[in-house]
């Protein structure tokens, strides 16, 4: 891809059929954006948590794809993704515990009702 304005249909077709790093990055970006949209629109805590997981997952795709397509000497990209998964696991555990706690204490799981940070 040199000049975006001189692309031919052939170029587009070739790009579409030759799966490479960019495709994974685009997929990751799309998943991330979907997760973000969900995070911004859902009212409940648990759906919001799910969206956060989606976003983390999208980031992991990036890491794995980089590791696969770029000239790397070892598997450190995947390793980063594994750490990321570990952190995500910790996060979801805490998040679910928090949600449970909030539900127990305030009898709600709506983010709207949790505005005690209001300035």
């Amino acid at each position: 891809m040199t000049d975006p304005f001189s692309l031919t249909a052939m170029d587009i077709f070739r790009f579409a059929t030759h799966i490479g790093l960019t495709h994974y990055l685009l997929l990751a970006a799309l998943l991330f954006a979907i997760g973000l949209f969900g995070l911004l629109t859902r009212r409940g805590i648990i759906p919001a948590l799910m969206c956060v997981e989606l976003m983390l997952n999208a980031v992991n795709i990036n890491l794995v794809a980089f590791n696969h397509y770029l000239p790397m000497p070892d598997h450190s990209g995947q390793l980063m993704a594994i750490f990321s998964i570990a952190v995500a696991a910790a996060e979801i555990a805490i998040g679910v515990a928090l949600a449970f706690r909030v539900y127990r204490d305030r009898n709600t799981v709506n983010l709207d009702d949790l505005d005690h940070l209001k300035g």
Partner: protein
Amino acid sequence: MFDFALTHAWLIPLLPALAFLIIGLGTRQDKDTSAKIAITMSALSFLLALGVAGAVITRPVVMADPFVMKTLWAKVGDIELFMGVLVDPLTAMMLFVVTTVALLVQIYSVGYMAHDPGAGRFFAFLSLFASSMLGLVLSVNFMQMYAFWELVGLCSYLLIGFYYYKDSAREAAKKAFITTRIGDFGMLLGILLVQLTFGTLDFLELKALLPTYIWETGGGILTVIALLLFIGPIGKSGQFPLHVWLPDAMEGPTPVSALIHAATMVVAGVYLVGRAYFLFSALPVVLEVIAWVGGFTAIFAATIAITQRPFKRILAYSTISQLGYMMLALGVGSLTASMFHLMTHAFFKALLFLCAGAVIEAMHEEADIFKMGGLKERMPVTFRCMTIGVLAIAGVPPLAGFFSKDAILAAAAEVSTPLYILATVTAFLTAFYMARLLFVAFFGEVKPDCPAQETNAWMRWPLVVLAALSVVSGVWGHFAGFGEWVFHGPITEEHISWQIAGTSVALTLLAFFLAYEIYVAKRWSSYEISRRLGVLYTLSYNKYYIDEIYTVIRNTFVDKFGAVLYWFDLHIVDGIVNGLARFTGGLSGVLGLAENGQVQRYVTVFYCGAIALVAYSLVFAWLVLSVLGGAF
């Protein structure tokens, strides 16, 4: 022995101060002990004052060579303030008067305050007052005098408001304090100007510096200084137009009226002018102002006194009038006459007030003289003392007032005929209203439900002593040569001008006769006379509406100006502050929209930032690459 008194003169004000501390801190609840302490200390002060007076009589100290003892009080930069004692015959006379009256009044108060639960407090304040007044009298410089000047003002305030549970007493106390403060402010300006001009406030140093200064630079600034200083005495000594507080000050207990508002504190103004007479006497313009202020006050107050009904109010206006007399004497250049009259007045006016106290107490707080009558039989001792007081103030020879008043009249006659006539008319009026007071209250029929009877011994004996002093002080002062001790400039020959004295005595007797005809013999109806006089009577009865005029001035000028300032404060000053607050509040409201506690709003903002960062780095990278010509 006189040397001992002289070198220990500093004890004279300290002893009552000690009494104040002991009573105030310890025995306030126990009025008998309090009274004993106060009287003991006053008596010791009195003895020391006698010793000082002895030193004057045997002449170790004279006007030209005073005894001075001072110690450094405060040092600010290169300004050194001293505090100490300055004893000359003037001081000695004042010490004698103040300690005598203070002692007698305190003894009297034992009887007067016998049933008042606040008696301990009363004696504490009286002691503090005595201490302050004596300190004032002994001052070596203007600053010390000013400090004690304010202290006596404070005592006056405290004692006028002694019956603090009475609205009128509280109001009177405030009025007295604020009114005299006006004068004090002028005086303070004068003192500061003295310091600026001469670099010293010491009386003796100033006295030494003054002739050279006048010779070198003239009297312009000095006149300003003297006039400013004179504002203090106008306030303190109840001169027109700041006299309004003195009649109201009668709300205080009667011994206070006798001690503070008749005999001692109110003459502080006269004393100040006398003490700084070296300054005033060098300035003819200022002297003239003093003379006219004094003269006008004298006749002005006398015309009011004629129509008043409350016992003490009559005496209060009489006091104002007599203080005007003293000022007049100073104004016409006779320190001797003024101080002589100060002394005699202290005795007979204190006597009159103490009699008033006895009468009013006997009448169960009834102050209107027209509700009294026939007290002559009921209270014989009081009546005799009162008669002596009235004769003394009216100037009947050979009582005290005759000599001192005659001295003033003679001095006035030498300088200015209008002032002399003014003073003479005042003397006539004085005799008339005092006779009216005496006749109405003590003669005539005894009112049917009159509870009056003779007072107790505590109150009786001070009256007798003061009556004796009222009788002899004039004669003694005249023949022992008061003018050879207390004088300024050349010693004036003491001689009675028979023409002047004769006129005044004749007028006095005429006034007595008229008053007798009107109020005892009832040949003329007093009501008819007041009706005939019409406007004049109304003016006098309402004290020339001075209070009302002040009220109007306050309401129109002060309140309106205050309203303007209030508006300014409310809308401009507060407006700015509130505006700032409102602006900040509004701004925070705007910012608060971002801080609404909704996590998702925060996430939105956060990602907007993230997008902006990525977009920025993209644009930046594109720019760099296109400049470098690199290919995608």
